[in-house]
């Protein structure tokens, strides 16, 4: 039997290329973490005077932690808004016909690809014309709206895999639409929704282009970091970034486990169905 490996023999440089690209992708992240422990600041080679001083400084830094709290609040609100409107939007795209549907789909997805500043300043104009004061709420509205795109695409993908006969059965057996949605549709979409929520949460925690225009008096974490970068760079920023990186890794891990779980589940179900027939 021929394996894929010996179909292509002239590819000795490919693994090296792959290793180089991965190195390129990880170089800044590794540098960031290493220099968060560097006593003499963010430059200089080799790193010397390993210390936890920057982390100590960071933990005593109230402005940073206030901004972390603000970012968490914004991210939670963004998840609620974008799922709250993204789930019905995905359902609508999947199973309703209405005038302007094609335009609606494009419009929902636009913030994903349009430069963030365009969405940010368009919303700034809206809030200005409507005389709404800028605050964390306006940032949350901005993030929530821009990220409906993520919720819609993830949930729509989940709906494509959904077996519609379950919903039909539920309706035939006398459940109303809300009960069917609550007890059949939603549980089936659970993994897509959790995945979308994680993604939206992380994207919102990092978002800066939209926030940049909608910021009121209270800073989100990226804007706090941004403000400090303009004044000069300190390893304290490396320290907070490293901590966030570790948290992101956890989020990825959960997300990955969910993906694996969603792919494995049907097989487990198939085995459960088969095992009685096999007699063990």
């Amino acid at each position, binding site marked *: 039997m021929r394996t894929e490996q010996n*179909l292509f023999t002239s590819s000795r440089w490919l693994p090296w*290329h792959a290793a180089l*690209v991965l190195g390129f992708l990880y170089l800044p992240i590794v540098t960031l973490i290493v220099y968060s422990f560097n006593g003499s600041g963010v430059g200089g080679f080799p790193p010397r005077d390993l210390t936890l001083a920057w982390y100590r400084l960071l933990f005593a830094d109230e402005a940073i932690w206030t901004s972390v709290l603000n970012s968490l609040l914004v991210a939670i609100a963004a998840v609620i808004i974008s799922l709250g409107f993204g789930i019905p939007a995905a359902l609508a795209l999947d199973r309703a016909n209405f005038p302007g549907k094609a335009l609606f789909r494009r419009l929902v997805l636009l913030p994903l690809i349009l430069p963030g500043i365009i*969405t940010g*300043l368009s919303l700034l104009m*809206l809030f200005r014309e409507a005389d709404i004061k800028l605050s964390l709420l306006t940032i949350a509205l901005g993030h929530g709206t821009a990220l409906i795109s993520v919720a819609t695409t993830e949930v729509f993908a989940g709906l494509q895999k959904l077996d519609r006969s379950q919903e039909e059965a539920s309706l035939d057996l006398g459940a109303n639409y809300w009960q069917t949605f609550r007890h059949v549709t939603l549980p089936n979409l659970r993994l897509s929704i959790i995945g979308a929520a994680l993604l939206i949460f992380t994207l919102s925690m990092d978002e800066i282009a939209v926030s940049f225009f909608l910021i009121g008096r209270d800073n989100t974490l990226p804007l706090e970091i941004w403000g400090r970068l303009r004044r000069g760079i300190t390893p304290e920023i490396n320290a907070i*970034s490293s901590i966030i990186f570790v948290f992101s890794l956890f989020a*990825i891990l959960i997300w990955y486990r969910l993906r694996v779980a969603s792919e494995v589940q049907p097989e487990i179900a198939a085995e459960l169905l088969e095992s009685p027939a096999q007699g063990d």
Partner: protein
Amino acid sequence: MFSRAYRTAITLPPLVWVLVFLLIPYALLFCFSFWSVSPAQSIVHSWTFDNYRELLRVNVYLQTLFRSMWIAARVMLFSLLLGYPLAYYLSFHAGRRKDLFYQLVIIPLWVSYLVRAYAWKTILGSDGVLNTLLQYVHLTQHPLDFLLYSPFAVVLTLTHIYTPFAFLPIYASLEHIPRPLVEASHDLGASPFQTFWRVVFPLSIAGVVAGATFAFVLSLGDFLAPLLLGGPSGIMISNIVVSLFGAAYNWPLGAAISFCMMVLVVALLFMSEKLEKKWSFR
């Protein structure tokens, strides 16, 4: 199977929300681009083409737009050069390590964009990691000053950030290529290069187009990397917009530039969609 009430209930709320928080703001951007600012710094709601005339009259706007497109084009090219062979290797050669490699490409996407741009700044600066390393091993005596505050730094950083974006659609398109096609080409006597060039590559063009579009469009509108690493020679079009909305206080002119960018981006998306359709084989 779904009643009218059900369809209304799922359609109306997102429709209204998107209308209020996306369509109206984008329309407002269009309106603003025809308004003006009075000497007393308030917005005059009367219609004029002055902002667009200004864009054509003052060289710096078009120049900066072209520079941004040139930077974006280089980012696109480099992320394809980095992303395509990586995707190809993963899809055809990585074997059991495929999933691990895939995750390794995705992970940097979860690290804050700002933080990664900042990390490049600490690497490229004149007492940064790279310059001190080069001096430490006696390759250079003085810091290289073209590394930071230059278009080079912007292109490098944006390439770093958008390579995974270029990689993802290419990888997806390679994964969709039916393997029997590749084996058939081999069995019929094609060399590995011929197989790649005549079978694999044409089938992956839709992914390449999508990846190239992502890399180009996303870097075209970037304003943080140039602000952080670009210096005066690395200024991009969004930086002008930011300053017009900030200290320069000319929202209508900023809106006109943004609207042009939006038209450009939408046109590019439209073109890339056409190209993808033309080249997809399903």
